[in-house]
């Protein structure tokens, strides 16, 4: 899996209020490494994740994911790419309120049309691997912030995506949980050999990353 962005520009607004969030951005993200995106709020970290994750089409430029320019794909094709090739871990609201921790992972297979029953044992194993063996039947409102983020990480990696996109993973957890999550992201990235891009303000996450892109200076 490889991810490279070349000449990506994203603007917001119309007419006089039109501003560039990303301007002619070019970068390549290596597999098996964690790349941290840093910069002040509004510098385009989340926008870059959205473009790389086929959630947002750039105004111009190419987003090459394993040989496919996903910036040129239609809505349906981008949705297929998201469910088959990309794992997401968002800042908050990662989990579906009605589902247990195990079912959160099975939801990913359900969305991918792969059924759920035969994946249950693997889902349990994935959660146990992240230290959530005693939280399998817990719903999001019964989990701590750190546990919720770990479930989200397990779901993001459950279908072994080539690209893992993480948005402010430690924003809503305490220091010790943040360190644990940063460590897990690095471990899983290396174990799955996936391309991982993390947007963060957290120095601990930046310190544990293999590469850092400062969007403030990139702009």
């Amino acid at each position: 899996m490889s991810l490279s962005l070349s000449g990506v520009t994203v603007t917001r607004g119309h007419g006089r209020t039109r501003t560039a969030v990303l301007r002619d951005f070019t970068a390549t993200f290596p597999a098996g490494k964690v790349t941290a995106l840093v910069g002040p709020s509004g510098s385009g970290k989340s926008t870059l994740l959205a473009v790389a994750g086929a959630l947002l089409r750039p105004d111009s430029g190419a987003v090459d994911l394993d040989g496919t320019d996903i910036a040129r794909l239609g809505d349906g094709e981008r949705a297929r790419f998201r469910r088959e090739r990309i794992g997401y871990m968002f800042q908050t609201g990662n989990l579906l309120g009605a589902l247990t921790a195990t079912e959160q992972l099975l939801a990913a297979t359900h969305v991918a049309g792969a059924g759920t029953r035969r994946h249950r044992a693997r889902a349990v194993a994935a959660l146990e691997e992240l230290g959530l063996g005693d939280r399998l039947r817990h719903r999001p409102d019964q989990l701590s912030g750190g546990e919720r983020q770990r479930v989200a990480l397990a779901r993001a990696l459950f279908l072994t995506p080539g690209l893992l996109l993480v948005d402010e993973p430690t924003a809503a957890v305490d220091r010790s949980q943040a360190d644990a999550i940063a460590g897990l992201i690095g471990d899983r990235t290396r174990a799955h050999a996936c391309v991982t891009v993390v947007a963060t303000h957290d120095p601990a996450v930046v310190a544990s990353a293999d590469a850092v892109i400062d969007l403030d200076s990139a702009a």
Partner: protein
Amino acid sequence: MFLALREIRAARGRFLLMGLVVMLVAALVGIVSGFTTGLGNDTVSALRALPATHVAFAPGAKSDQFNRSLVDASTVARWRERPGVEAAPLGVTIARGTTDRGLEIDMAAFGVEPGTFPAPPVRRGTGLDAARPGLVVSGKLASDGVRVGDTVTVDRLGLKLPVTGVTDDLSYGHVPAVYLPLDAWRAIRFGVPGAATAPDRLPQDVSGVALRARPGADLAGADRALGTLSLPMSKVLEAAPGYKGERVTMTSIQVFLYLIAPLIVGAFFAVWTVQRAPELALLRAIGASRRRLLSYTVLQAALVVAAGTVAGGALALATGLLLGAAVPFSLPAGTLAGTLAAVALVGLAGTCLTLRRVTTPDPLTMLGAAR
């Protein structure tokens, strides 16, 4: 199914409440339908049982024809001569009587010629006989206590008629039907209390002429030639007193319920969709297709509407059983199934009002930049 069932399980209180509302709407529609059918039967079941295709009335009678119309004997005779048509005289009037055991009864008296097609089949006893006076009563009167062998005295006239048989549960204008020979009917219709008038001195008119027309029979030509107005049975039912008004009233109630049901279901799912907008956005972000979001929302709606509708149907049936014979209520399986299918369909149609919102969540809202 995976997400639909788990969301229902997690929000079972809300779905139960919605199911209860659907159940009550379905029960109300079912009960109204039962009353519509029951009242309809109570008004025109005797006419529906008439094995005729048309009835010819006097042309001047524009409404309540059985009461207003009078057709003379010569016109009946000329109808009988028309090709392609089987004709028989028919008289209808409302009367009261008392049995020899002191039971007071109301009667929709149908005067017929024994042996002609309007004469009713009997379930018990014997049918009408041209040679002797007699009365075949509706099963409803038998349920009220009238027996074969009783003698019914027609109020004010003193005319005595022995009950010879019992036919089906037929009625006309909410009054149980009785069938009697035309001479006796004319005595009730034209007789003057206190004056014993010989049958041959009474007017030989009847209310109308029951017709069995073969395809292609020229009824319009016959009407022009004989000075009558032939109406098909669907129109003849409207000649029963109150039938049209009842139908309009009950149908209006049903129509309003069919309009209310989708709005209730639609409102629930609209609120439900707004509440879970962040989760729909998450599902879109992780790659769920619009089709999948649509199908699982429709499945949830279908489950709630189906369960509520079936429970409502059961409640309507139970209400019918509880009411028993106290009120005119009839809810045959076919009517109930049709009614419930209509409720389910309009309920699902209500869900469609919310589907656009289900398929257009913005996955970008999951990212910090959009918060």
